[in-house]
């Protein structure tokens, strides 16, 4: 069941990314290009997703447990440290260079464009090598 629900949520997530325009790197770069031909649409994407989550997350977390598991799996770290900020900085540089973040890049694999595959393979290498720095 957990696999089925995860599949369904991933499926829905991909449709949301596609409808929102997040899978079009040109739109992402135009959103980040505040000095150029600025495209504000990502603000509406974030606005819709965060507002909905902001209202629903606390309601869900009032339950003693999720529907299909014994407990919630939530991040426990609270401190804003150097590692968090340096990671986010590097992430933003990569995001700004080509306009892909992890979700949209995965969804776009099905278009079979070589550049997306190269991006995802490099991203997996980055995710894997980052492991040596997080312990």
């Amino acid at each position, binding site marked *: 069941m957990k696999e089925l*629900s995860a599949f369904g949520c991933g499926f829905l997530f*991909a449709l*949301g990314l596609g409808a929102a325009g997040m899978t079009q790197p040109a739109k992402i770069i135009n959103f980040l290009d505040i000095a150029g031909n600025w495209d504000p649409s990502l603000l509406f994407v974030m606005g819709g997703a965060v507002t909905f989550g902001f209202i*629903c997350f606390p309601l*869900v977390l009032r339950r003693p447990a999720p529907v299909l598991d014994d407990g*919630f799996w939530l991040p426990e770290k609270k401190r804003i440290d150097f590692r968090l900020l340096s990671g*986010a900085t590097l992430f933003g540089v990569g995001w700004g260079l080509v306009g892909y973040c992890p979700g949209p890049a995965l969804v776009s694999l099905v278009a079979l464009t070589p550049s997306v595959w190269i991006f995802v393979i490099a991203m997996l290498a*980055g995710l894997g090598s980052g492991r040596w720095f997080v312990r």
Partner: protein
Amino acid sequence: MEQWTMVIAPLAGGLIIGLAAVGLLLLNGRIAGISNILAGLLTPQRGDGFWRLSFVLGLLAGGELLQVLYPQALNVSHPRSLGMVASAGLLVGFGARIGNGCTSGHGVCGLARRSRRSLAATATFMLSGIVTVYLTNHVL
């Protein structure tokens, strides 16, 4: 048309993303952070890999449906060299791993959880993304 692509479609897409994130929390008790879901797949723990793999397969299946119904959504053409694409992929993966999350984990779920760490991370990657695009589009 302008209003549709700039406001309505992004807002509707955002709500669907939010719904998927709330659904994964409600059903599986998990945060819909793509980079963390992937990172867990690279070093799978016993009994923990299958929901991650299923979520990723769901993303790909959603991509297939988009490809059929709305192929413009997967318009991947962008004028970047393959070397730049590979460097960007490495930075995105490495940065998300040491920063514990990406646009979905920090930017959507973290903000929805009112996490100060996620707010700091989101502000930071937005800013470094803006600086990067400024440099590549207007300076270099």
